[in-house]
């Protein structure tokens, strides 16, 4: 019922390839059949129906996608989790308390376990009363416990009723975040082809692009930087690419410049999405610009005290385990600092990343942008470290392309920065490291002070 519009589209696309999983291609017809089969099986053999809370562990695969859609159609409240997340799986299950756990392993085999838990949280009860499917997503907060964000899934699905262009798309972003799911729904609702990914290294990703003539690569700035450093693009034919989208963290101007040069003819599209409000439509001021228009139908955007606030039809009902994150007039406080120029916005960084040096404030990204332009620098991460004299000092972890004398490199870095940055923004401590820590989401890992 809730996904009727999608199923109608799937019937139309019939023999077109919906999904490539490993060596196998699946048509829209077979996807539709599998959704129906899974739906019957879940409801008849497991008593799953409207209002059931179900965790679905997996990555993008034929069965996980089919089950995901079957759960939505049945009106379930789904908690997508990454298969193989051993780190905090139990914590996430503890917070979301699903009645049933469905696991889809890397070979696409399905395993279902019933839990004794029954979740009576008031937000879940709201969804049950509405008889709407729900979605619980975890926001990887920089501190403390993950926040369980509860969506009315019908709100998120609505935008896919509008037709857009479809592409052969690499599902690079992960299964348990709206970024990855948004890519999936966008591609399937428009008759595109989803190419699933089992490994997220630059060379493997490039080999998939070459092999399946991928047109759209959704990614993150950190991954794109790794792609540049690895030079994997030189070893594969990537001429099928039309669009590379990036989001999830601020992009550096220098990386974007290099990318535009190497991938001439490819459009770089910045996306802006948050688990709490969904993905906003964006339009860059011009090619290669980090300024963008944000919003579109169903979104209202404003900046209050430099922080971006968003009101959205598809916003979450709230968190299971935290207070509601809205202003009194219903705007979600993003925590992202933004500059405005007329109707354009530029996202500068997380408010929590701001470093305060003797009262002067700076975002790591500004300094990273400069350092990344220095010859022989592979990757850089800037952070603040407490210091009794100035409150904080600026530190930079830098990985190099070729080995270089530490003392000489530090001196070179400072000199370079001096010509381009105000004095207080020049890193005081410079550590040369083997590599910069990257999370499983291809975002730089936070350095705790």
């Amino acid at each position, binding site marked *: 019922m809730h996904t009727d519009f999608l199923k109608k589209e799937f019937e139309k696309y019939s023999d077109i390839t919906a999904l490539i999983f490993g060596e196998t291609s699946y048509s829209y017809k077979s996807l539709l059949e599998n959704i129906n089969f899974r739906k019957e099986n879940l409801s008849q053999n497991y008593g799953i129906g409207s209002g059931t809370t179900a965790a679905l562990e997996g990555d993008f695969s034929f069965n996980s996608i089919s089950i995901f859609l079957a759960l939505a159609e049945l009106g379930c409240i789904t908690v997508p989790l990454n298969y193989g997340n051993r780190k905090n799986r139990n914590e996430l299950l503890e917070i979301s308390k699903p009645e049933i756990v469905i696991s889809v392993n890397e070979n696409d085999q399905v395993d279902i376990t019933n839990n004794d838990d029954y979740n009576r949280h008031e937000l879940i009860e709201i969804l049950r009363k509405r008889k709407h499917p729900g979605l619980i997503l975890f926001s990887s907060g920089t501190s403390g416990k993950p926040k369980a964000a509860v969506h009315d899934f019908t709100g998120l699905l609505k935008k896919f009723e509008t037709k857009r262009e479809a592409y052969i798309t690499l599902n690079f972003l992960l299964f348990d975040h709206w970024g990855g799911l948004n890519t999936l729904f966008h591609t399937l609702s428009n008759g595109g082809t989803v190419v699933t990914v089992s490994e997220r290294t630059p060379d493997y990703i490039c080999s998939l692009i070459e092999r399946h003539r991928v047109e759209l690569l959704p990614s993150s700035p950190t991954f794109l930087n790794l792609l540049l450093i690895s030079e994997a693009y030189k070893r594969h034919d990537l001429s099928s690419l039309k669009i590379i989208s990036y989001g999830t963290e601020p992009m550096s101007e220098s990386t974007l410049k290099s990318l535009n040069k190497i991938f001439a003819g490819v459009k770089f599209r910045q996306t802006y999405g948050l688990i709490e409000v969904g993905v906003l439509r964006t339009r860059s001021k011009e090619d290669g610009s980090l300024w963008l228009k944000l919003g579109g139908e169903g979104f209202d955007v404003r900046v209050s005290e430099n922080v971006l606030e968003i009101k959205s039809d598809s916003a979450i009902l709230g968190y299971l385990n935290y207070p509601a994150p809205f202003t009194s007039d219903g705007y979600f406080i993003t925590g992202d600092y933004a500059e405005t120029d007329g109707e354009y916005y530029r996202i500068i960084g997380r408010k929590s990343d701001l470093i305060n040096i003797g009262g002067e404030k700076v975002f790591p990204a500004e300094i990273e942008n400069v350092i990344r332009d220095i010859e022989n620098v592979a990757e850089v991460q800037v952070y603040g470290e407490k210091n009794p004299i100035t409150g904080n*000092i600026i530190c930079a972890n830098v990985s190099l392309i070729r080995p270089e004398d530490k*003392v000489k490199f530090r001196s070179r870095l*400072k000199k370079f920065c001096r010509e381009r940055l105000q004095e207080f923004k020049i890193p005081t401590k410079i550590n040369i490291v083997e590599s910069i820590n990257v999370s499983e989401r291809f975002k730089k890992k936070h350095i705790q002070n």
Partner: protein
Amino acid sequence: MLSEEEIIKTIYGAMEEINDQLSGENKLVLSHETVLYGLNSRLDSLGLVNLIVEVEQRFQDEHGLEIDLTDEKALSQKSSPFRTVKTLSGYISSLSDNTGKSA
């Protein structure tokens, strides 16, 4: 244990690096009596912090000696280690002695 000469040499190295960042009249003179921070000093707080961290990193790189010049001990000395090059050298010498003994 480091000799005074070695310690001074490393401090001078750090001062030369910092001098690169300073304008002509503010440059630090490489001498034992140069005032680092206090009356008539040429460094502001940011300059001092930069010098301190540069010294720390150089002792680590050149001598494998890990020192913290802004811990409670350093900041609670009766007379500040950062008064002159000589006092700083003396303070580092006492730290390297202690490190030597405890090792």
